[in-house]
């Protein structure tokens, strides 16, 4: 009785388990494909737009900072290392 129960539970777990593994990974296949398609679409349509905003967005502020201060930092460090 108990053994039969144990075997039944194991079979249940196996069928649900393998079923779920396949369900999950199949879903992941579709979601991944969808994601790749969307990203590649955005990339093409968004290409021009991206270039335009590149000089107005937030990141460029940092970039600007970077470029401008890079030279200063290097010089300052040089000066300071000498100290």
């Amino acid at each position, binding site marked *: 009785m108990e053994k039969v129960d144990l075997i039944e539970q194991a079979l249940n*777990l196996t069928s649900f388990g*393998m079923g779920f593994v396949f369900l999950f990974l199949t879903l992941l296949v579709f979601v991944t494909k969808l994601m790749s398609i969307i990203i590649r679409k955005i990339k093409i349509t968004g290409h021009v737009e991206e270039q335009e905003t590149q000089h107005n967005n937030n990141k460029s502020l940092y970039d600007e900072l970077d470029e401008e201060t890079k030279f200063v930092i290097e010089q300052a460090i040089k000066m300071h290392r000498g100290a």
Partner: protein
Amino acid sequence: MEQLNTLWVNTGLYQISPGQALMLLVGMLLLYLAIVKNFEPLLLLPIGFGAILANIPGAGIAEGNGILHIFYVVGIESGAFPLIIFMGVGALTDFGPLLANPKTLLLGAAAQFGIFATLLGAIGLTAVGVFDFSLTDAAAIGIIGGADGPTSIYVASKLAPDLLGAIAVASYSYMALVPLIQPPIMRALTTEKERQIEMVQLREVSAREKIIFPIMLLVLVALLLPDAAPLLGMFAFGNLMKESGVVDRLSDTTQNALINIVTIFLGLAVGSKLMADKFLQIDTLGILLLGMVAFAIGTACGLIMAKIMNIFSKHKINPLIGSAGVSAVPMAARVSNKVGLESNPHNFLLMHAMGPNVAGVIGSAIAAGIMIQFLG
């Protein structure tokens, strides 16, 4: 004279039990496999050494306030070490080949049948009276077939801590034996013509896809199987650190100092579970046998799944990459490549096999989540 006697009764020679002597030899066997045979030395060397330390008679290094027992409680009982290792593995994983060919995820799914077949085998052998495994034991043993050390250790620490030593040793040993176990099965289940199939070149994968994939994976896990979230969450976190490109210093440390430090202590702590009285049982033999079977079945199912997919798909898959679905990254993928080269010296399957290879990591973690949900 009394003190001489004290000294003598405190020696290991006086206190040693036959089991401990045997386990010292087992520890040395593991060191031999690691150093001379080069079997997963990063884990088997610390595990082997830990096993020796744990079985020193009278030292109590793996009990009470012994240092290995402390490492075990702090790192494994808490789940921290396997999860941190999984984060490191994530930071070392490249999902590129998988993203270029997502349907290879199904090969990683099929190979998990090794896990459940072994669960059934363990319960069946218990039913006929050969072994005496509970359902949680059987589930923890089955995960060996997932060919992922940290996943095996994590599940065993939750479901069957008494069997953790044997399960970890079996897991890493068979991962090391992949180049011996898989090729005969691969040759038996495929035709020469199938082995010669050349696959189309993988497309380029953009940085954005690689960044979004781990987040997407985590969300899917969160919505469908929360019990797999610790494992796959840390895995995805490690991968996101690497792919995002904005936290390179964290990613570098994760891939080097952090994973190395944790590997050392994980190995020693696992070794502490190889104490004679727990390890030297008929169950251990069962675990080693069943683990081997799990690998073989997982390999076979991966191959068969590839052949089934070829019936429905116009882009043919070389079935040899199916065996890489058991994970054992990157050894199984390299075996696929090697066996493929035997039939077609211009057919490099390595990158194609990396897809199912990392899919197998995800698949095993999902299977682990199912086990923990139903039995944890």
